[in-house]
């Protein structure tokens, strides 16, 4: 290696593995000595191909692994939409062809051809779908399933089609079938082998899977050969014949207008072949344990590589190879010696896992099986001859034990005396029993020891922190349950049971209390504490119960039964200040206000001598009102058409808006109109913590919607909905829940989202932490809100409709009720005497509180 001069690494392919390589190069300091040029053929930066099918629901942006399209480190340059066509190993150059659109001068340079030097070349070209030589495979309506462009084409074709066929019943084929079902096509899967997923499953497991899949409306044809794709130019159907029959034997035609090939993948090793690098007999660039080819300057990683002759069609081995090459370039000792080919997935909603020696090929291996045809569960363990070690297994219908079983295989941990216990229903394996070296997250190679280190040494207090710190659970997510168990058991072993009970008076969580109140229809604290708690409550449980009661009924929060439960601010429908005075915040929906109303606010502030400030929430706050003045001040405001802004409640605050398409030259939708509509819809909704919203009229995001609990950003086609953002102590960016929605769908998703949060979040948990702590995270929220997986959608919407219909302004109602007004007095025996301890000075022409003299502790007042 030439020292002193910076070296240049050229990476061919910006897929999942090429991206991981660039990330690792930055993180591990390789860019201190090397420049990295990444050339990618696809029009967009790397995206999560593993999650490709969720493109239908989420769109491209959500799948991106590099949302800005650029690395933070300027020494890594990414060139997209460009293909490496040739490698010159003698000159150490690559030739790159870019489309005309990427060229500087269209007339003189129709398609740019450039040549780049390299010191190190990394091939990360991935794999391509294998399309078997079936007659008619070039007809319109034939597709593969690998890129976002493939999915766009399938989606467009499905709009004109009624039925579709997937050729290939493996893992990817079933994934594609799932997509066709979601696109509304009557769907067939054709598989040559006698069962589905022949590589991972045995016959019994395959049969169990067929039953599940057929229940979802997919017709499965196993043991079938494809003869010909019929149709003139466009596909009309597929002619098939039973496997094992002679050519010319009777055939059958399955009608379809869409055919998706999913018959396996082939490494993209053509560039290597053309420059005479050796490839493995079954394809893939042949590399050693450092992923180096016979040419020491050239490496290959990911699906295009064949370390030791084997190609791996999964992302985790590819990630491991990327790390190994970075390590090698840093003169580290890393090596790639094979990978765990275990898989766990949810196919069409069915759990399927296969790991280790699933087919019991080890000498003397024994099989233990458990099958329940009624519920569609099949589990098999493969154990060593002496019954001491777990070698592998298959799980269909219930893969909950996967997290415990798979590490047992890789660690060689001795099995318990009755190994069948591990697969019998309701088995609860103890992950603490795993050895420290056991790999918990295979995608990111994180062991149990790494996780325990994160909690005990690195200060991680919860699963979210562990995920961030170790990367465990951040790729396919299948290990999250195990990670969670480990974290909880660790704290339990320290005697630190994370008690989720509300306080000393209630062992129940807020969610449990919410359900208890709903089921029993309680309306009074007394009934609740008598039946489910102890003592007389406190400042933790009483406001929480007040909030639950307010969410479930639309009665005024100062009714006698609940007035005493309210927290400081709710108690007087205003925010208490440091000197015992209060602030007044009228609602100004979306921040839009008429001059007349502005004048009223000014007049009220002037007449009562209140300090006036524009808040961070696009409205106006009036400070320094004494408690007994609140009704008179609010009467003036209510008469002028104002209502409570709920600045005091754990409830909706503001829905911030930008000016949007009505005035702004860039706006594509009426963001002010929507912000006002949403603020009026959700005003007064009592929630576990405060709620804020925002609506921006275009992607410039002037309303900072992604900093809110729910944020809406206008698109040409409608609205993108983001959830789980906040500012405050621990800022969080909201993440995309669903895209390009029409207003009606947007509102129904928001109704569901907010009610689901109100029902299930913990006390004082904002939406971001609630989502983090929900099992399944944002994906779970999406399943419930968008896919309606729990069938709760209508119920949640009805609850919100009840809230919206039952809304009344709290201040207007208070002013109309003498009983409620009685509490707004300074002293019961001197109602009009101002509190003598309150005093003000003047600063910048407005009042300011004088700090009350602190009374010596213990002395009589």
């Amino acid at each position, binding site marked *: 290696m030439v020292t002193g001069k910076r070296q240049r690494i050229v990476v061919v392919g910006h897929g999942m593995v090429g991206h991981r390589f660039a990330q690792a190069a930055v993180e591990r300091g390789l860019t201190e000595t090397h420049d990295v040029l990444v050339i990618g053929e696809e029009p967009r930066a790397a995206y999560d191909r593993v999650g490709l099918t969720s493109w239908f629901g989420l769109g491209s942006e959500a799948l991106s692994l590099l949302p800005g399209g650029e690395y933070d480190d300027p020494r890594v340059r990414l060139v997209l939409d460009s293909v490496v066509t040739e490698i010159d190993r003698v000159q150490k150059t690559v030739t790159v062809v870019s489309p005309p659109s990427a060229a500087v001068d269209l007339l003189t340079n129709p398609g740019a051809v450039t040549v780049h030097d390299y010191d190190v070349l990394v091939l990360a070209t991935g794999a391509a779908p294998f399309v078997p030589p079936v007659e008619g495979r070039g007809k319109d309506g034939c597709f593969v399933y690998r890129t976002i462009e493939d999915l766009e084409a399938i989606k467009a074709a499905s709009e004109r089609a009624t039925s579709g066929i997937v050729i290939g019943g493996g893992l990817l084929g079933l994934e594609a079938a799932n997509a066709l079902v979601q696109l509304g096509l009557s769907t067939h899967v054709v598989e040559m082998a006698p069962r589905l997923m022949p590589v991972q499953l045995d016959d019994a497991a395959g049969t169990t899977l067929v039953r599940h899949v057929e229940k979802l409306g997919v017709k499965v044809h196993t043991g079938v050969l494809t003869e010909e794709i019929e149709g003139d130019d466009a596909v009309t159907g597929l002619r098939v014949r039973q496997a094992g029959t002679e050519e010319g034997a009777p055939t059958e035609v399955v009608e379809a207008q869409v055919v998706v090939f999913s018959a396996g993948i082939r490494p993209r090793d053509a560039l290597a072949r053309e420059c005479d690098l050796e490839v493995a007999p079954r394809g893939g660039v042949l590399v050693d344990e450092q992923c180096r080819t016979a040419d020491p300057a050239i490496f290959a990683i990911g699906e295009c590589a064949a370390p030791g002759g084997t190609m791996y069609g999964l992302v985790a081995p590819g990630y491991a190879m990327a790390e190994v090459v970075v390590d090698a370039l840093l003169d580290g000792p890393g090596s790639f010696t094979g990978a765990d080919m275990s898989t766990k997935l949810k196919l069409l909603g069915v759990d399927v896992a296969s790991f280790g020696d699933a087919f019991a090929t080890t000498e003397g291996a024994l099989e233990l099986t458990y099958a329940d045809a009624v519920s569609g569960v099949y589990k098999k363990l493969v154990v060593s001859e002496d019954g001491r070690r777990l070698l592998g297994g298959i799980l269909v219908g219930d893969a909950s034990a996967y997290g415990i079983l798979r590490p047992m295989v890789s660690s060689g941990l001795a099995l318990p005396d009755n190994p069948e216990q591990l697969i019998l229903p309701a088995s609860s394996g103890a992950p603490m029993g795993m050895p420290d070296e056991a790999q918990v997250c295979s995608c990111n190679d994180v062991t149990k020891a790494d996780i325990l280190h994160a909690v005990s040494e690195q200060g991680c207090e919860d699963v979210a922190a562990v995920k961030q710190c170790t990367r465990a659970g951040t790729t396919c997510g299948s290990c999250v349950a195990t990670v969670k168990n480990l974290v909880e058991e660790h704290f339990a072993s320290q005697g630190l049971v994370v008690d989720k009970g509300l306080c000393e*008076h209630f062992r129940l969580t807020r969610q449990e209390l919410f359900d208890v109140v709903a089921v029993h229809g309680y309306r009074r604290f007394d009934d609740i504490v008598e039946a489910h708690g102890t003592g*007389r*409550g*406190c*400042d933790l449980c009483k406001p929480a119960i007040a909030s639950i009661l307010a969410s479930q009924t639309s009665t005024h929060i100062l009714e006698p039964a609940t007035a005493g439960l309210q927290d400081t601010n709710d108690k007087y429908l205003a925010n208490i200040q440091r000197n*015992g005075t209060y602030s007044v915040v009228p609602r100004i929906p979306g921040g839009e206000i008429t001059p007349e109303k502005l004048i009223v606010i000014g007049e009220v502030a002037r007449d009562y001598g209140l300090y006036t400030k524009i808040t961070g929430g696009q409205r106006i706050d009036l400070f320094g009102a004494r408690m007994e003045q609140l009704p008179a001040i609010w009467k003036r405001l209510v008469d002028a058409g104002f209502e409570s802004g709920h600045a005091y409640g754990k409830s909706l605050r503001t829905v911030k808006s930008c000016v949007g398409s009505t005035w702004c030259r860039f706006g594509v939708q009426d963001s002010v109109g929507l912000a006002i509509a949403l603020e009026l819809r959700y005003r007064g909704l009592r929630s576990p913590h405060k709620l804020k919203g925002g609506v921006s009229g275009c992607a410039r995001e002037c309303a900072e919607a992604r900093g809110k609990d729910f944020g809406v950003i206008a698109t040409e086609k409608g609205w993108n909905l983001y959830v789980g953002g906040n500012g405050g102590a621990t800022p969080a960016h909201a993440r995309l829940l669903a895209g390009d929605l029409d207003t009606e769908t947007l509102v129904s998703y928001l109704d569901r989202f907010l009610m689901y949060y109100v029902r299930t979040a913990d006390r004082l948990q904002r939406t971001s932490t609630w989502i983090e702590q929900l099992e399944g995270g944002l994906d779970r929220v999406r399943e419930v809100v968008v896919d309606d997986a729990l069938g709760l959608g209508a119920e949640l919407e009805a609850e919100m409709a009840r809230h919206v219909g039952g809304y009344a302004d709290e201040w207007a109602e208070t002013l109309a009720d003498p009983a409620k007004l009685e509490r707004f007095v300074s002293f019961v025996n001197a109602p009009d005497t101002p509190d003598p*301890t309150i005093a003000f000075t003047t600063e910048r022409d407005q009042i300011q509180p004088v700090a009350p003299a602190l009374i010596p*502790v*213990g002395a009589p007042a």
Partner: protein
Amino acid sequence: MSATMTSTAVCTVETVPLEGGVAALVDGVAVAVFRTHDGAVFALSNLDPFSGASVLSRGIVGSRGDVPVVSSPMYKQAFDLRTGACLDDDAVRVTAYDVSVVDGVVLVGAPREVT
């Protein structure tokens, strides 16, 4: 026990909400009067010693263990309604007053001796 002759009638007992409080002026000083769930009446200085604001009557009344308490609306420290002792800071105590109910009227008496 202080003499009852200095006691001041402040309001009817119904004026004090169950598990709630009101503020009263007694000799120019703000006193918080509370009623617990079982109807017992207590009186403490209304001044919250942690913020200096006159607000204790607006706190939440409940219990901690067997102790009837009010928690300050400002920073939430709990005070024993019987003695004024702060349960969250041994060094802090607010004045407790003698209080009684006669013919449905709440009478606030003298500050209690600190023991």
